[in-house]
């Protein structure tokens, strides 16, 4: 359980938290809401033992967040929006890194990562999309793109990205096309632009198949 007693945090002269107290029993799903500046993030960072309170106490399963930080860290999962997201890492590298932070032995880390990717349905998602697209003749997947989890850049030889975009759009597939506000770079690379497909947690294999089918239709129309 979580227990917060008279928690106070002062930044300079301003009190971000002023004697906050609450308890969350085990197995409860607790929504912690409030307007911007109410002190939600400050409270969460103290609970995650990332920030020292000015006054007051907080416990995670009985562990004092100021005195037993390592114990607290092993007990919690914290998913912030973007804080601590390393966008240069692949999904597998990311999970491996954090598993290592939790002192998981190397031999076990891969299994943990695989299981978690399976749990959220991301197993091989990225590789799958890149593989599927690369296998279509005349389609060039921009190298290096493979190392980013969520975006694949590609071109269809001899077809302007805008024409690719229109065809894909008509097939119900939304992508971003053009120079992506990097015209000088595109000029340097000698291309008119690129097609960018983004994948999120909400996409599944059927979406990738649709993207591939639409790209094939585009190729048939323009290249043949």
């Amino acid at each position: 359980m979580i227990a917060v007693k008279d928690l106070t945090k002062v930044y300079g002269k301003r009190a971000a938290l002023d004697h906050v107290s609450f308890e969350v029993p085990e197995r409860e799903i607790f929504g912690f809401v409030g307007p911007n500046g109410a002190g939600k993030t400050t409270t969460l960072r103290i609970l995650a033992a990332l920030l020292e309170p000015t006054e007051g106490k907080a416990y995670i399963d009985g562990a004092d967040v100021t005195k037993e930080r390592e114990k607290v860290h092993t007990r919690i999962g914290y998913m912030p929006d973007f804080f601590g997201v390393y966008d240069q890492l692949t999904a597998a590298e990311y999970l491996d890194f954090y598993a290592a932070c939790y002192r998981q032995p190397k031999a076990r880390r891969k299994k943990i990562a695989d299981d978690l990717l399976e749990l959220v349905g991301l197993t091989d998602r990225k590789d799958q999309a890149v593989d599927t697209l690369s296998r279509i003749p005349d389609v060039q997947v921009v190298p290096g793109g493979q190392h980013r989890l969520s975006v694949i850049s590609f071109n269809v030889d001899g077809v302007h990205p805008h024409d690719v975009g229109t065809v894909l759009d008509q097939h119900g597939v939304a992508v971003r096309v053009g120079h992506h506000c990097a015209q000088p770079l595109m000029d340097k690379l000698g291309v008119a632009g690129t097609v960018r497909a983004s994948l999120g947690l909400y996409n599944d294999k059927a979406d990738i198949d649709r993207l591939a089918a639409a790209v094939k239709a585009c190729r048939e129309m323009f290249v043949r």
Partner: protein
Amino acid sequence: MSDAGMDLRELYQDIILDHGRHPRNFHALEHPTHLARGHNPLCGDRVTVYLAIEGDRIADVSFEGRGCAISTAAASLMTEVLKGKTVEEARALFAQFHARVTGGEAGEPSEALQDDIERLEPLTGVKAFPVRVKCATLPWHAFEAALKSGLAGQTVKTE
């Protein structure tokens, strides 16, 4: 054919695909009397239109540049219909074409322009694709700018 296929064939008719792949009059003129560049910074399309005007007649017209299939085909077809026209006829033709791709009004076209309007008809498929209308009109805007600027080589931007 799926709905997507039908709409797309309206936009990418064979004549568009053909002119997009093999643009006509795709080169610089050696002795132009007028030229201008068209540039759409949003999509990156660039076109340079060259004119050789003798008296009030367009003796020769050509273009260079890079763009999508629509803008390339539009420029190619434009050079075909403009060759031999008087400047006045050419302006009237642009007005008619512009109205047809944007859904605007340009009044009744003269009998003499009917064949050329028909020739440009395949491009009016962009009407159903608002973001692509600029692709079809960019070379015409460059043509109009060339008429105004002579050899000064004005750049007209559309977005």
